[in-house]
């Protein structure tokens, strides 16, 4: 589903270039989920943005759902994001003047992949049934993030990219949101790559990877030395 081959990324800073990725490689098979851990400023979000085509690598190749970054135009990236990817952020990014229902249908409508039965299923699974006619400011943070998750999954993307999706939520709400996100991703057969700084949130996913000094290293279970499941 997702492959990174020797990806390099620098940032120009006043005191010289900073290398955030120095030939990072990574493979995420279809249907698997992985957490991306690392210190603040280690380049986790940059990597996620590269995968989503929101930023471009200085060297190396990304292959997403069979499409190579080396041969993709801006239009191709746009179509890929619309039809095959979805992004979930800490800030939810709901349109404040659209109802919950309109918000969660937004990307599915853009990609013309709105399945009403699956929509109702998601609404039910995410506990949004009583909230569909409300506006975002009438919801709690956890409810808003659940709407963002429903929006991200409704068009059945091949790959879900999540950047600290529970960063704005308290611990109990974070666990509930995380649980339902992982369950639904598995249910839809999508892959999930999630940036987080929380080892606990990372433990919900199949794999944990750490970005350190521009390289990706898979984390192993701290008790038996095997890669965590």
């Amino acid at each position, binding site marked *: 589903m997702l492959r990174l081959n020797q990806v390099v990324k620098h940032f120009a800073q006043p005191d010289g270039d900073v290398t955030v990725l120095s030939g990072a490689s990574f493979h995420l098979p279809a249907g698997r989920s992985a957490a991306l851990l690392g210190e603040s400023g280690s380049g986790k979000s940059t990597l996620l943005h590269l995968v989503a085509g929101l930023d471009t690598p200085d060297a190396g190749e990304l292959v997403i759902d069979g499409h190579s970054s080396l041969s993709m135009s801006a239009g191709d990236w746009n*179509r890929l994001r619309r039809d095959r990817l*979805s992004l979930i952020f800490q800030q939810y990014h709901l349109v404040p003047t659209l109802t919950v229902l309109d918000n969660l249908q937004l990307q599915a409508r853009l990609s013309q992949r709105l399945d009403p039965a699956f929509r109702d299923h998601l609404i039910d699974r995410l506990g949004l049934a009583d909230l569909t006619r409300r506006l975002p400011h009438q919801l709690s943070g956890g409810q808003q993030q659940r709407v963002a998750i429903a929006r991200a999954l409704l068009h059945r993307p091949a790959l879900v990219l999540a950047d600290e999706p529970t960063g704005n939520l308290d611990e109990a709400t974070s666990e509930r949101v995380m649980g339902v996100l992982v369950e639904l991703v598995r249910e839809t057969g999508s892959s999930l790559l999630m940036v987080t700084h929380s080892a606990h949130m990372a433990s919900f996913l199949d794999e944990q990877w750490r970005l350190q000094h521009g390289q990706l290293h898979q984390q192993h279970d701290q008790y038996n030395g095997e890669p965590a499941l």
Partner: protein
Amino acid sequence: MTGTLTRLLRVLITLLSHHRRHPLQTLFLLTGLVTGVALWSAVQVINAHARASYAEADQVLGAQASHWVRSGSGEGVSVDDYVNLRRQGWRSVFPILEQRLTTADQSVINLIATDLLALPDEEAGTATGLPAGGWMQLVTPPHEAWYPETLAQQLGLEDGDRLTLNSGKALPPARVFSREQQGLRVFMDIGAALTLLDRSHLSYLVVAELPGDAAARLSRDLAALNPDLRLVANQQRLDLTELTQSLHTQLAAMSLLSFAVGLFIVFNAVRFSLSARRHTLTTLRELGVSQRLLLGAIALETLVMSIIGTLGGLGLGYGLSQLLLPSVAATLQNLYGAVLDYTLLVQPVTVLQAWLLTSAGLVLALAWPLWRQAQRSLQDQRDEPSQWQQDQRARRRLALGSLVLALLALGLYFQLNSIAMGFTVLALILFAGAGLLPWTVALILRGLQRALPASAWRLNWACGEGLAQLGTLRTALMALLLALTANFGVDSLVDSFRTSLSDWLQQRLAADLFVQSDTLDIDALLANPGDWLVESHRRNGLTVRWENRPTQIRGLNTDTSDTRALPLAAETDRSSAWFDGDPDVVLANEQARYLAGIELGETVQIPVGQQTVAFEVVGFYHDYGNPAYQFYLPYQRVAELWPNAGEQGLGLWLNDHDDALARAEAALVAAGARPGDWTRREDVLAISLRVFDRTFAMTAAINALTFTVAGIALLASLLAIHQQRLPSYAHWRSMGVSNREWLLIAGLPLGIGLLVTWLLSIPLGTLLAGLLIYDLNVLSFGWTMPLIWQFEPARSLFWLTLLVAGFTFAISAVQARLKLPQALKHLGEDAA
């Protein structure tokens, strides 16, 4: 004390750091201030200049004269003719020589010279400011040239210096006076000036007073002495300050509207910056800065901004005033015969007023919101409702405020009795309309959202986006509404006036030829005219003083076709008596009705010599553009009561033969008229309408500038919106929204907002035009006309708005597009 000052400066520097970090916001804040102040101050400078010109005009030689003697050919009055007139006993006549001269260093000066010995004592006193005999050095060799202090400073002259002209000749020794009796002109003895300039002709003669039938006798004497000489009534003798008051009030009101539109840009810039500055203010308070210290720093920031805004605005305003002055001068000349010179000075009081106005605007738009923000408790700030909820509340408050303003306007309207009150009502209506606009747009957007079918989800999204944008867009839309309403209202007024004037002229100028001649023997012409003449209308008249204003008495032939067709604005059932030649009834112009307050059926006392004669008012007629009161009486009645009444022109109807005009012209010449004394009907009409268009050129210029300021407000808003919405746009892009979809969703709300604004401006503009025509015009000028509503100005404004909006949207869209990659990289970061 020093510690407090240091802390205050530190807090001020922290507050001002916002401007360094957000130069675009600061640029728009200052742009709003500067353009608003510029338009206001431009009009103030012109108004102050006009008032100074009127005051100066009163002091210039001959300004108070009743008549002038001028040459028809333009070559001036010969010294011999002047001497002959004096010898014939015309002691109230004195000579004037005026000439523009170029000095050796290419400066241009105006010279005025007279014969002080020929002047009546009071005129000599006005001219020199000295008691009789105090000016002997002026009239005796080597003579003197008197300079007002300002001019002497400009030319670098001191007492005793001799100014050299580019001809090589030198003016007599200078004497500098602190009083500026003759404006910025050099004053000399006429004998010395004629010799120095090698001239044999005077510019014109001034006639101090002409009692009784003296004007008619002087005309006859002039014709006998030299047929080229004419006696011209002094139009400037009108009380210019009083007559032009309403025009200056109107200009001031229009400039205040421009200032208000400029303030909307300031509001917009401040509102946009408020969320960023809120954090600074909170942090400062958390760090222990007292509210008093914060208030002091905010006041200082406001002071700094007001000084920059005032200086920038005055600088730009001065430039604008020079551009507008020719239009204003044309208006004053056309309406009132007042002459303005084209040299402008910014007076200290204008600078002070500009600063006070700017400060007041800034306190309202900048200091007050900042102070309110600083006053809120930290808990309040944490519990703050979302931006969207705040916008919604602001819209509701604005709509409620509008309702209050509208009710106030209604209440004031029923007590309307002054121009200032009229403009207050207009301002209340305009701002009520503007305040209602965001609520109306929101209502329409929400209505559309409800009405749209599920399949139109993109449109639904665009409407939602419109509601999100409205918080920032609203000030620009309100500013645009003010500009559109003012433009549509004033355009409707001008169109109505032009149509009414044109119809009125068509009726009033029914004859084929109009003759105005000092030398024509009308009796001889009409005694045996030949078959080229179908009908003639001879008028006589004079100006008297009635109700403290110049009042024209006009004698008309009541049998002619144009008089018979005279439409009356109001009449009693006795009006037919006037047409039957009843000597005791009179028709009055609307100015006498509305400004002097006379009513139908009332008896007016008109001065005749030392007596007054009573007339019953049986009708009122339209008399557009006349600043004076006027009464129509039968020709014979005027001739009986005022034997010295002069001929006021002759209208001639020609038959339809091809040679009628040529034969008429030949007959006129044979009866003593000179070429140029008659004008054809089409030419009079064309000249009148040209004068009209020149008169309203200035109104159009101010409106166009107000529209430009509104355009800047729109650009500022759109840039702010796209800056604010950039994280959302980046997220849309992350969902795969295409450029076309983005254009639709981000651009459609602007289109809907503009459409609603334009639609609302039509009824508001019509209301404005109605108030201007039916109330303010009557209060200001004393005449009425019907409001002629046309769609054309609205259509033009629609296309203009579309053009401005398209242009500003394109700029802001390009700006957003350029910033999008950066915003995409920051997706996921905390928006704060």
